[in-house]
């Protein structure tokens, strides 16, 4: 990667704390105090993967399978591993990957999977933040919730598979056990939802809960005191070198704490139309 431009950070992020960490070269615009106050109470969930601490144990992969009863033949998160170098100077490292819960580019404000969804933008919905205030957002079969999570509404899904193709990371699959709500001849799309059913109850995602090395750190980028905010700031992670496929302009919110440059060495991208890269295998 040659460009040095920072990942795009949406306006709310910039204005509510994560901006301090992530606003490298981003536009700082004054906004009314009331909007900033409301925004400050809305979380922006994100994950930091500390690649110094991932020991390739696959507890996250299996915890995710169990938590979400993910069928065989597909994954919601995997660990990629790679061995390189010549004996005896051989290296091996690990790279956990999952949905990046992208913020999307400046223009779209949503990632390509949402843009690709024929059911998006659907109806306007309101989402209540802890303060009781409501934030409006556009729903869809794939949509971005105001807390940044990219979610799937399987009742609205038509099983067209456009989101599977649109995701540059290839982290989506069809769930063989769930019919597409709007077209029962098809199966619904599925992917990591950051364990929204846990997060919404104040419990961290299943993959984070079981991570031995604390290589997975989950939290609120809009809270400057959160561990993810502090790590992003301290290690300058909101930069192209520490997110996957920055050049796609998706603005990922999974950051890699990676002083050794493991991410780029290990990462195996999807091949078009295939998901082989997203099958967790130990050689």
């Amino acid at each position: 990667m040659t460009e040095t431009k920072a990942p795009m950070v949406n306006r709310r992020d910039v204005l509510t704390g994560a901006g301090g960490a992530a606003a490298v070269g981003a536009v700082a615009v004054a906004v009314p105090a009331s909007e900033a106050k409301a925004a400050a109470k809305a979380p922006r969930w994100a994950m930091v993967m500390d690649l110094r601490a991932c020991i390739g144990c696959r507890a996250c992969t299996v915890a995710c399978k169990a938590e979400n009863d993910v069928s065989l033949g597909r994954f919601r998160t995997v660990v990629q591993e790679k061995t390189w170098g010549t004996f005896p100077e051989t290296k091996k490292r690990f790279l956990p990957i999952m949905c990046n819960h992208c913020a999307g580019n400046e223009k779209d404000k949503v990632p390509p999977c949402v843009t690709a969804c024929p059911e998006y933008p659907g109806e306007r919905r309101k989402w209540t933040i802890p303060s009781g205030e409501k934030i409006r957002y556009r729903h869809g079969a794939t949509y971005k919730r105001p807390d940044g999570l990219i979610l799937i509404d399987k009742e609205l899904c038509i099983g067209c598979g456009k989101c599977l193709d649109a995701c540059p990371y290839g982290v989506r699959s069809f769930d063989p056990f769930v019919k597409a709500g709007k077209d029962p001849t098809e199966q619904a799309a599925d992917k990591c939802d950051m364990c929204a059913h846990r997060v919404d109850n104040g419990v961290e995602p299943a993959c984070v809960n079981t991570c031995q090395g604390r290589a997975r750190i989950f939290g609120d980028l809009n809270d400057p005191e959160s561990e993810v905010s502090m790590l992003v700031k301290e290690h300058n992670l909101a930069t192209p070198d520490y997110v996957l496929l920055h050049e796609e302009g998706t603005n990922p919110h999974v950051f890699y704490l990676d002083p050794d440059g493991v991410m780029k060495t290990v990462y195996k991208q999807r091949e078009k139309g295939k998901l082989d890269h997203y099958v967790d295998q130990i050689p």
Partner: protein
Amino acid sequence: MTRLDRRNFMKLAGASSAALAAGAGASGQALAGTADIPSKEASGIDFSPTTGKQLEAIPSACWQCVTRDSIIGHVEDGRLRKIEGNPNSIRTLGKLCARGQAGVNQVYFPDRILYPLQRVGKRGEHKWKRISWDEALDTIAAKLKELRDAGTPELFMYQYGRHKASQAATMYDFMAAYGTKTIGNHTSVCEAGKWVGQESLWGGMYDNWDYDNTDFVVIFGSNNFEAHTNHIPTAQRLIRAKVQRNVPVYTFDVRLTNTAAMSTEWVPINVGHDGLVMLAMCNVIMNEGLFRKDHFKFMRVTKDYKASVDDRIAAVTSQVAAFTPEFAEEQSGVPADKIRQIARDFAKANSACLVTYRGTVMHYHGADQERAAMLLAAITNNLDRAGGRVMGVGAGWKHPSSPVAEVHKSLNINDGFPGEAAYPTHHVSHQVWPMIKDGSHGRPKVYWWSCYNPAFINGDNNGVAAIMADESIVPFQICTTIVYDESSQYADIILPDVTYLERWDWEDMVSANQIAEFYIRQPLVKPLGEARCQGDVWPELAKRIGFELAYSSKEDFVRQSCEMTPGVKGAGGFEYMKKHGVWHDPNAKPNYGFYEATVDTSGDGVILDDETGVYWNWKKSGAKDEAEAKSVGYLKTPGAKKGYVAQDIDGTAYLAYPPNTKFVKAGYLDFYSDNFAEKGLPAFPTYTPIPEHTKKADDELILTTYKTAVHTHSRTTHCKWLSEIKHDNPAWINSKTAAERGIKDGDAIKVTNGTGEIATTAYVTEGIIPGIIAISHSLGRQQSGVYGSGKASPTPGGGAADPDAKNKWWDKHGVHPNVLMANWSDPISGTMRWMDNVVRVAKA
């Protein structure tokens, strides 16, 4: 390798059935927390991803491997949904590995055996009929009663693989009440050499590594980040030490394991040379004056018990003089400069952990390699010091005991053939079946095994299978199991075991922080089908044979134990444990340096032994009177070690290292061992080349095996989430070694030796030393149900259908390397020489 393109997803989609989930992401839901994640209050709970309901959280304990983590089971409407670590456990700190996470699969895999079965065809014909528990128990009770009434209870043999804590205690209790001591284990294929090496020295066993406090770590032949006997408690502390405190970690291994990969440096080493490199490190440390004097007064390094510390230092220096780094480089392949650097850093570190495991000990004289490790730790004063190699601390439970039978005896088939092993203190389990076949030491008439698969886990496992299949050798065979496997296929009666998630136990595994944790296992769900816990079967069987046990069920046994065990009882006993799962003494402190405690020797009957300087109580030794005790002496009085009180060192009576195991010794670390010398074994740790390796032809390779992060040796292949990740086990081979044989990555290869032959594929890699191949030993299942072996078990009844089975996408199930392993034993410990086999490898 995989076939997960979009077309396949579409196909699967078309073929699937319903089980509809509600739409995720409904609007209008308030966030319960923001920056509080992770919060203490919010751990240990879980919610259904489909209904959003909070799940019932029940504390229990894992059993996928011997680590036995404390867990929380999350249950919805009587079905186990999820397992997590118990956040209140001081051992696991709420973490769980991939195997533990897949525990759900143990309960619900489709081939699970759920009813008692009786063989109706010939052994191995796979013909079974379902019978009732009454029929099964009546049949078994009749056979056992006959042997007992005839005064030959020892002709009933029981053998187990993974039994620990109350699962073992209830079994041993029943067997003692019945009258048989013919009880086999599995430890010689596991780690016996490590135990024997340690027992001969510090009288205890099972070291732990104080990663939380250490400044330096050196690992030999141990894959702490993927497997290990105390995986979760130790691995997380090790990676934390490395990342958060920049603790250097050096891993010597033949293979680039995950542990080696995540270490500061992987140091490749030739097979069987761990002890030599450790002795070379000792050589550097002694010659350069980097040793610490502190521990020498507790070390015996020559015949002379009363040598001065200076004499001891001189003796150790001289004993290791031959093992120069240059000599070690020649043999081990580790550069001399590297040995020097690591030795110096190890010795200079404020504290340092020396870790060893199967790679070190599963060899010819493997027990002696462990003794070399203890020497390195001792001369740097890292034995049982904060941050060092410390003696493991586990929970000490009290439990009820039943009256022991009047006739209580054993067949002598547990310790190998005569002369095979000098100190088989953990038995020679891999020779049990060969000895049964041999017959000259007696044969059991009834053989019952549980949580054990001898026809898979032992050397020459096909040979074991042939003996088990022969009805003329052992006429009646009973297997308690959850899965149809390589051994249960030769049973006459199969009893459906509960999974560990359906039963009661108290547990006691070693802590990583030197503070004992008491914890229990309780059923997360009702046993499926007619599965029954062994601990519930024993009282029932005893009644049918005609005796009573001190407990009526496993739950009763655990309840009584909780009310008998002081700390647990004080905390609230059984009810407290059911609610919390774990208990530790909040005032407990790590007991570092226990050997430095001074001891009062004024008690009645305590005398000082002139030769050794041991204070011992002759009244507890079985000696006739004081005069006899004095004249025979401490070392020669049978039972004297029961009376051990203290070791006199320069006029002070120290607790030192009491002989708490089968070895008779003084209170010193016995680096000079009379026990070993008497049997013609090295009295002081040394380097003994492995005979088969020195005789090996140039074109032969050494075979090694290993575990991955997602499997145990033999009990996880039917777990779909684990086999999905690891179901094939191509042989690791270095690119040079492969090229010499014209082998390319993915090529079919043939691996042969005098014991057996396998066909597999090559994984050509730079992550292994030249001259060997490495094959994971968890796979290659002949029987293990559809997920493990690719074919459904031929047993009637079985578990409920798993709709996910039709999504199984892999058709490879690996090969089993044990067919290439001879049942050779370490002449010291009787441990199976797992890593000594030599093979020929050729392109198929």
